[in-house]
């Protein structure tokens, strides 16, 4: 055992002495190498979402804007006192609306045809009058190629005035059919 230990020691001394001679010949690098530390992860802000519209939302808003533009573009149809037939001077407006609602941009929307009245007339009769006005316009639009299935009608009677003064000009403005588009 002692002999083994002695031999190992001598061998070790021989090896170490050999290595020391070699290390002298090795060139020292110009810049000392330093140990690379692991990068510290920065987690703050992880998971923060950008507040903005998704593609879907943006297209919804664009659709809504388009709808409002078409609604604003549509011409109102005016009626005579106590009447629900379309006046000759209103026919160009109906033609215009029919073309507008048949445009490719407008075809994706449904149309609510709303009948309105002035303040004269009784409670029920006025609502029926508004309904007949809406029906007249719907039928006129159907004849001009607007799909009847896209249109619904409703009467708001005298509940939706655009003018509240007690003048003949004001009453004339309130006897009308207007349109609301529905997605």
């Amino acid at each position, binding site marked *: 055992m002692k002999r083994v230990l002695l031999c190992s020691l001598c061998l070790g001394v021989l090896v170490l002495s050999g290595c020391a001679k070699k290390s002298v010949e090795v060139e020292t690098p110009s810049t000392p190498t330093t140990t690379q530390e692991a990068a510290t992860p920065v987690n703050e802000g992880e998971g923060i979402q950008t507040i903005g519209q998704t593609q879907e939302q943006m297209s919804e808003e664009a659709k809504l804007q388009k709808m409002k533009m078409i609604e604003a573009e549509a011409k109102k149809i005016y009626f005579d006192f106590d009447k629900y037939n379309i006046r000759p001077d209103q026919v160009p407006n109906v033609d215009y609306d029919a073309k507008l609602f048949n445009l490719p941009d407008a075809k994706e929307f449904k149309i609510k045809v709303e009948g309105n009245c002035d303040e004269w007339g009784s409670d029920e009769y006025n*609502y029926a009058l508004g309904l007949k006005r809406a029906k007249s316009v719907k039928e006129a639009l159907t004849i001009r190629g607007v799909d009847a299935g896209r249109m619904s009608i409703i009467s708001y009677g005298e509940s939706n005035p655009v003018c509240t003064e007690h003048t003949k000009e004001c009453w004339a403005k309130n006897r009308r059919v207007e349109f609301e588009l529905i997605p």
Partner: protein
Amino acid sequence: MRKLLLLLISSFWLFATDLTLEIVKEVNALPSVVIEDATVDVETLINRKLFNLLVGDLEVSAHFQVDHTRNLANFSDPVNYMKYKGKDFLIRYRLFYDDFNKLNLEGAIYNLKSGTKILVKRYRISDNDRFAFLAHHLIFDFNQVLGFNDVSFLKSFVIFSKYTAPKQADIVISDYTLTYQKTVVHGGLNLFPKWADKEHKRFYYTQIKDKPVLYLVDIYKGTRRKIIESEGMLVCSDVSDNGTKLLLTMAPNMQPDIYIFDLITGELQRVTFYPGIDVNGHFVENERKIIFVSDRLGYPTIFAKRIGSRAVQRVVYHGRNNSACSTFGDYVVYSSRETNNAFGPNTFNLYLVSTTSDYIRRLTANGVNIFPRFASDGETILYIKEYGRQSGLGLIRLKYNKSYLYPLSVGKIQSIDW
């Protein structure tokens, strides 16, 4: 010749004077009433209003000649008979809050001729806002004690829809003077309220969203039930006596016609088939017939039709626009436009006709008189009168040939029922 002429003129004058005398005599025939206020510790404003309500109720009952003086007294004091010499009745009242802070009205009514107390009663109300009903109940009981005709309309609720903004209308319940008002349906377009029963516990109304929907509301349970919906328009115009059938104006095919809806079977029966406008159906003649408004002649006027038959009968032969009516038994009250000015002020008068005779009576003389509605007694008609830019709530007591007007400060009324 001159003497003869003078004699002739004098005799005309004599007849004219006689006529005046006769009217005065008739007015004097009504028993006279004085009121004593014995209120001590209630706000002056409520008390003043209550006094005015008592005077108003007595006037509208049409059974009394009312002294408008507000006399003061202590409730327990003996009656000063000398002060009220020549008067028939004394109403002494006092308002007070009880231990639960509820408003009470104590009333004592004396027959001044016989020196007897004919009514002593205390009324208590849980919601102080409803103080108007204290006065209405006292005067109702006074009429009952004297055996006069029923004046239960004093205690009735009125229901109306009023516009609050474009496409917005609320439904409000009030007393007949509109002193008490409570909004019961708010938000959206709520129209055409119609009492569902004689007790005025439930009502129908139409709500317009995408489609008109008819609802039934129980005001005491606070519940709401959907009855039916329709395209275009939907109105409950009348309810049968037993409350099981409704007369509706509907437009399921975009065409306003009158239908009967059976609430028990759910069956819907179309009654009118005209391609123009048929609205405002009301039952008459034991619900065998209906009265309705139609534009069959090119303008709205009143027609009658036996339920199930094809024939239509014209009821009114005058006026250029008779677009609103109400019925009681065989009687129809309607509003008729007397002038034909499409762009200026028009006169709308109320008329009363019978479906079984040639009877016709004009009820108003000027202004715009609309929304006539019979009270449950059939003797009183409620209506809205517009004059200039103001409007008022009118009452006509048919039997007594009297009418009364209350100023309205509720905005534009859409529809009313009583």
